[in-house]
Structures are given as structure tokens and as C-alpha cells.
């Protein structure tokens, strides 16, 4: 698998580490307990497109959000997680 890092270009899997589901946003400190349980423990795990955090640890050390198909491994897009995070904040506020 090769991930096209928006900073470094296309690189092989071994440069990256995987974290998981990127659709989640960290709840506010005062959110209800079950919201936190959901955030920490429950996962989307779909058969198709999955949005996920990857860390380019052997490259630019950026956290990325990769849109990838869990069944075919096809990658649809890669962006900086920082931008995704900012976009999410803008979107919800």
C-alpha cells in the first residue's frame, strides 16, 4: 500500500502508523459518560469507505486523514488531519 502524503508524496506503508477511525471528534470535557465511552471504544468499521488517522512518522511527522476502502484498500484521498480538524470545528460551530 502506498499513501500519498500531501507533504512528502507517495510513500510506502512502512513509513506510517495507523491509529483508526477519524470521524470521531473528542467530546467536550463535560460531555456525558456514554459519549466518552463511544468516543474511546466504539468503532465504525464499515465494509467500504473508511476515514482514518495515519501518522507519517518516518516522513514529515504529520497526522493525516486517509479515505480508504476497507475491502479493496483503494485510497480516495489524503489530507492533513490538522486541516480536517479545523474543517470539522468550522463545520460544527
Amino acid at each position, binding site marked *: 500500500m502506498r499513501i500519498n502524503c500531501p507533504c512528502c508524496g507517495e510513500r510506502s*506503508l512502512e513509513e506510517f*502508523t495507523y491509529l483508526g477511525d477519524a470521524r470521531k471528534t473528542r467530546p467536550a470535557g463535560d460531555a456525558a459518560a456514554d459519549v466518552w*465511552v463511544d468516543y474511546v471504544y*466504539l468503532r465504525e*468499521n464499515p465494509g467500504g469507505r473508511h476515514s482514518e488517522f495515519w501518522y507519517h512518522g518516518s516522513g514529515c511527522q504529520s497526522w493525516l486523514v486517509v479515505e480508504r476502502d*476497507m*475491502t479493496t484498500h483503494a485510497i480516495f484521498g489524503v489530507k492533513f488531519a490538522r486541516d480536517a480538524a479545523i474543517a470539522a470545528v468550522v463545520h460544527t460551530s
Partner: protein
Amino acid sequence: MAKSPQSGTDRYSIFTVLREALRGHTGWRPAWREATPKPRYDVIIVGGGGHGLATAYYLARRHGITNVAVVEKGWLGSGNIGRNTTIIRSNYMLPGNEPFYEHSMKLWEGLEQDINYNAMVSQRGIINLCHSDAQRDAYARRGNAMRLHGVDSVLLDAAGVKLHLPMLDFTNARFPIVGGLMQPRAGTVRHDAVAWGYARAADRLGVDIIQNCEVTGIRREAGRVVGLETARGFIGANRVGLACAGHSSRVAEMADLRLPIESHALQAFVTEGIKPFIDTVVTFGAGHFYISQSDKGGLVFGGDIDGYNSYAQRGNLPTVEDVCEGGMALMPQIGRLRLLRSWGGIMDMSMDGSPIIDRTPVDGLFLNAGWCYGGFKATPASGDCFAHLIATGQPHKVATAFRLDRFASGRVIDEKGMGAQPNLH
């Protein structure tokens, strides 16, 4: 308790084999009938893997519930039961796990006679290697916990390891071997035979095994299960047990459930067949590598999961290299042996690395999942405990910790201490 599954001419023994040899093997019955779905069953088990088939068998055998169907989307045994590296062991550390896996080990020990099928349960022992004093202490902790549960465990020093495994690299290793934890009763089992043996035994007790029957929906009325939509039509049942391993999330989603599970690919490898080379199972944690030899002669080995979510039953090259590097580091004699085949399976990686055998918020819907890369060894106990839960509504006494709500409560069973990150377990 139902009667012994097979009797008379259908029994497997050297005599029936001889008889059939003489008449050209025309008298055998199919190992299991090709059942077509009935309109309804008392219990439907989704997933014709090891756990699903064992569950059906124990439902019939121990609880007398025989109006049972196992529905399988592909061919029986096409999931992880048909692609795992066949290691069985009960060398767990935490009290939530250990009694369960030991129960499984005991069931393995009597399995073949029970189901009248030679699954080649081979108690050849397992050795987990350690490379530092701290690791040795951690193994001692585990070995002591096992002893407290009445389970065999032996702490070996380097010389002790060498006695069993002279081919390991004791002289030039990057991570020198200081010892290991051995469980002599651990070993391997011929994986496909487990599926076939349980299927045959369940079939003989009246269970319908329905292949090529993908579940596409879980029909509910007023919050309780009434049956399943499948590729072969609707099938009714008030009790449904999910034993879908790597696909658990997708099936649970049909009942609007989200699970504390990610699906990950684990690869495995086999070499060309060679004459006996290694007599026990060895795991080399520092190198992400473990190995045993199949009775056919192939070295069967594996390592870490690929590390990203996947349903693809295959992995990528970095893991292949990583595993083979581990192999060469551990036993440089295998350099000229050839990798014959590599494949992958989809692991139901849970958030604490331990399984779930529990009810779900949907009435009548039961869940058996979260086996990670270690559910093969659990097959008999998982079937027994899941059957117990479905039949009685109560958790089996060796599986009380495998609750779904443990993530909310914090009573996680985290052997490795990696937290809610499945790819690290």
C-alpha cells in the same frame, strides 16, 4: 444431554476405513447434509466458522436444542477457522481469561473421541521466548497465574530453551534469548478438521448447516429478534447468535449496533514441505514471529497484524518482510527454505484484546466476537459457553468477564496493557 453423535456404520474407525477401501470408498455419507433452510428454527447461528459450528454442536449435545441452523455466507470453514496458524494454548495471565482458555484446552483434550473425528490435536508444547530479565519476570507472573489456575507452565532458562530448540540462534542474535515460558500441554490442531468435525457431529444431531447463505438483515419486532434476511430468503428464529469473527461489525450493524471492534488483516505463511524440523510451537515476541510445523511438513508461521483496518483477507509486503526477518533472526537455518504461500484473515480486534460472549441490547440477539488473532484455541470453549448463554440466558461460569459493558465500566481485560487501540493488542 443428547446421545453420542454417531453410531453404527457412520462411525469413523480403522474398520470402517478398511471396509470402504475394499469397496472403493462408495459407502461414505457426506460429512454434513447440504441443508436447505426451514422457515424457522429455535436458534440460528450466523457464521459457519469454528465458533458457530461448535456452538451449534454444544446446543444440541449439551442442551438438547437441535432445531438449529448454522448459516454461512460462503463455504463452511472459509473464514478464520480455515486460515489460522492452528496454535492452541491456555497460557493467559488475567483471571478473566485464564479459566476460559483452560476450559477450552480440556475440551480439546477429549474432542476427537467426543465428535468421532480426528482433528489431530497435537500437544507438542509451546515456548514463548524472552530476551530480558523484565520479560522473564512478566512470564513468571503469567506462569504463576497459570499454576494458580491449575494449568501447566514451566519457566525455562536459555539452556532449557536450547534443549527443546537447538536450531535457534543463541550466539549471534540481536536480542539474545534469555529463556522462555513453556506450556507443555499447548500445541496445534488441524484447523480445517475442527470445522469439518464439528459440522459432521452437529449434522448428525440434527443441526442444519446452510452454506452460501449470507445474512443481509436482522429482522426485529418491538426490540426483539424475529429472524434473519438471508441470500436464501427469510428464516425465522427468536434466538440468534452471531459468530462472525472478522465480520462481526458488519452483521451487528444490521441490528443498529456499533461494536468495540475493528477488523484487521493478519497474514500467515507456509513453506514447502520438509522433513521434521521443529517439534514445538515457538513464539519470538521481540521479532514478531512464531512458528510450528504442520504434519504435512510445511513450516507454518506468522507475526503481527498488518495494522490497518481491512476486510481484504490479504496483507501487504512490509509485514511479509518483517515476519521473515524475524524468522531469519530466530533460526537462520531456514534461509534456503522457501515460502510457498501466504494469505490473510480478518481479525475481530477488540478494544482490550479480549473477547465478548454476551447478550446485546437487542432481545434474543447474542454476540460472540472480539477474538483477535487468538480465537482458534478458544473454539470448543467458545462454542460451549455461547451455547450455554443462548440456552440458559446465563453466562457460563468460565466466561463471566467477557461482557459487552466492560468497556463502559472500565473492567477491561487487557493482557498487553495497550489500551483502546486494537492494532497494538
